[in-house]
């Protein structure tokens, strides 16, 4: 279910009785126009009523056990017998529903709804260990507003606004929002992109506000905070001292004494301030997509309890042992009456490729269809994507990582309109919509709009490997020559 649909919020306000006249009017229009939304509306309100009934019946039963009729008993047109009968009837109906037992045993506990996450672990060293309530369980896992501790190793977080945080254990951190966090102890280095300027980190007795920068903040064992600026500027201030605002520029280091109000400018040990990796060859992502800097241990259904799409590199440079068929030039619109078939090409044996894997598994199973959109841009041209499960299986032997456990179930494919055959009708997602994957005109970008509910969405992206990083990138014409069109 598309949780960002504004109509859902109108529906919420209506159900809560807080909808303004304008919202009610918008909702009314939406309900008139869309039969599917009318159905959802009724189902939603039915759930609301069922939860009310459930809570009411969980309360200790009043004496005598009758349904309150809100002071409307005196209406002359009703007889007491009728009212009592209806009251008894409603009690029976409520009890009937509550006493109906589930028809099957729980197959597994499902975390159906979680607080919105703020960040995801995009990299961590093998020895990294986390602790704390709802702390990430490892690479590819997410974290929200709970205070968590990196007990050992290093880890890099990517916040939803693009801010990157490198943590060096032992570090205790709490994110309050994508713009604000508190470092209780340890070391944190931050890279703040332009759009997120103003990112603030608090430490004991110190606030640091980014002014477009890369900086590091460390809190030593005595609780004294230290700041070092790699690039740009930061504003540091001791909250209890109004005149303590200090602007630090690139190369500056400072140690603060929050209790005494002191500030010591000067060089600190550089090893105290780890710098973030600056690998320009890493794919860039946008939207809900997150690129993991190393391969996760597993991409099985249920591994991650968040709604991000994750991608990771499987093989940096592999030679195709045999010719393979890949998809290129997909341009499908959801509402296109007759979507054209995607262009398939054959990559000849001997082609050198870099392979990436994309994985999307929404929170829970069947606890809501979640839509996630994003794009990934590579430094080299995209040769094609491998989508159907049977094609993934063919490429697994040379592309899959030995140290990653993959989803082997047939459900790992996407629900795309062109997936049909003479014997198989393509199945949409629960909402009736299909997944979409597009190759951008630049030849380097893959955009996706994925919906997941009952199964995982997975596919593979194959990217060209340049013989020499300094060599000119192959043009689309080069690629066209290399890949012969194929008809399936």
């Amino acid at each position, binding site marked *: 279910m598309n949780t960002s649909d504004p109509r859902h919020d109108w529906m919420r306000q209506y159900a809560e009785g807080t909808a303004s006249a304008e919202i009610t009017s918008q909702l*009314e229009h939406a309900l008139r126009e869309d039969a599917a939304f009318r159905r959802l509306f009724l189902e939603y309100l039915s759930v609301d009523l069922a*939860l009310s009934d459930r809570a009411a019946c969980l309360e200790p039963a009043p004496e005598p056990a009758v349904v309150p009729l809100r002071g409307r008993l005196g209406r002359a047109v009703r007889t007491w017998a009728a009212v009592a009968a209806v009251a008894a009837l409603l009690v029976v109906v409520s009890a009937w529903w509550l006493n109906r037992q589930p028809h099957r045993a729980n197959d597994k506990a499902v975390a159906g709804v979680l607080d919105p996450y703020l960040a995801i672990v995009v990299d961590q060293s093998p020895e990294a260990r986390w602790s704390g309530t709802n702390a990430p369980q490892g690479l590819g896992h997410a974290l929200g507003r709970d205070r968590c501790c990196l007990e050992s190793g290093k880890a890099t977080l990517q916040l939803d606004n693009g801010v990157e945080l490198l943590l060096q254990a032992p570090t205790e951190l709490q994110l309050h929002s994508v713009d604000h966090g508190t470092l209780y102890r340890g070391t944190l280095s931050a890279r703040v992109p332009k759009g997120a300027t103003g990112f603030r980190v608090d430490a004991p007795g110190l606030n640091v506000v980014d002014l477009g920068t890369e900086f590091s903040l460390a809190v030593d064992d005595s609780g004294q905070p230290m700041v070092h600026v790699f690039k740009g500027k930061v504003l540091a201030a001791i909250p209890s001292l109004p005149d303590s605002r200090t602007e630090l520029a690139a190369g500056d280091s400072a140690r603060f004494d929050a209790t005494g109000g002191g500030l010591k400018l000067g060089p600190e040990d550089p090893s105290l301030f780890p710098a973030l990796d600056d690998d320009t060859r890493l794919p860039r992502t946008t939207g809900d997509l997150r690129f993991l800097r190393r391969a996760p241990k597993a991409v099985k259904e249920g591994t991650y309890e968040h709604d991000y799409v994750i991608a990771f590199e499987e093989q940096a440079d592999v030679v195709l042992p045999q010719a393979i068929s890949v998809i290129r030039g997909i341009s499908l619109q959801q509402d296109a009456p007759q979507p054209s078939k995607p262009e398939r090409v054959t990559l000849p044996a001997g082609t050198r490729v870099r392979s990436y894997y994309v994985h999307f598994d929404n929170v829970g199973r069947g606890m809501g269809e979640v839509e996630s959109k994003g794009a990934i841009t590579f430094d080299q041209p995209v040769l094609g994507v491998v989508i159907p499960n049977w094609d993934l299986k063919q490429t697994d032997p040379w592309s899959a990582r030995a140290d990653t456990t993959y989803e082997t179930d047939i459900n790992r494919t996407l629900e795309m309109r062109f997936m049909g055959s003479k014997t198989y009708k393509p199945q949409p997602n629960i909402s009736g919509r299909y997944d979409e994957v597009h190759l951008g005109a630049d030849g380097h970008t893959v955009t996706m709009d994925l919906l997941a*509910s009952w199964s995982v969405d997975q596919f593979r992206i194959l990217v060209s490997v340049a013989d020499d990083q300094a060599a000119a990138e192959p043009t689309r014409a080069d690629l066209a020559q290399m890949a012969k069109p194929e008809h399936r």
Partner: protein
Amino acid sequence: MATCDDPHHEMFLRLFTAHEPALRAFVRSLVPLVADASDVMQDVAVVLWQKFGECASGEDFRRWAFGVARFKVLAWQRDRRRDRHLFGTDLTELLAAEAEVQASRLERQREALQHCLDKLPFDQRQLVDTAYTPGQRIDELARRTGRTAMAVYKRLHRIRLALVECARGVMLKEGWT
């Protein structure tokens, strides 16, 4: 009027039980406040109970029940329309038709919901039970749990949506479309 000794009593109970979720969802969809919706629903139930023997039985119960509900909702709207913006008559008819068509489905949804509620993590189930407790104020609940009222409202909203989807998933497996 039917009585408990009446041979129609059992049939009425069975029919009303089968269609009550859809009737209530329909009434609730057009009456924004739960308390008002309960009042209207009680009016509907009283009329159905009083008139059951003479007006309807068996197969046409659903159509008749929705007709009564539609009438009661329109009457309620007529009395309240001056006070607030309410859905128009045309949408009322559309929702009534939809609820009537979905009656069996909404009944099954209620059964599936029990299964889905069992699958909710404990803290979410607890939140739902607490938030829906009669008389519970959301702002007080928010203060106790260290959240804003809006955060609690939105969390409940996501849980409701998740339960809708879960019930759909359960029903999909059973062949409902």
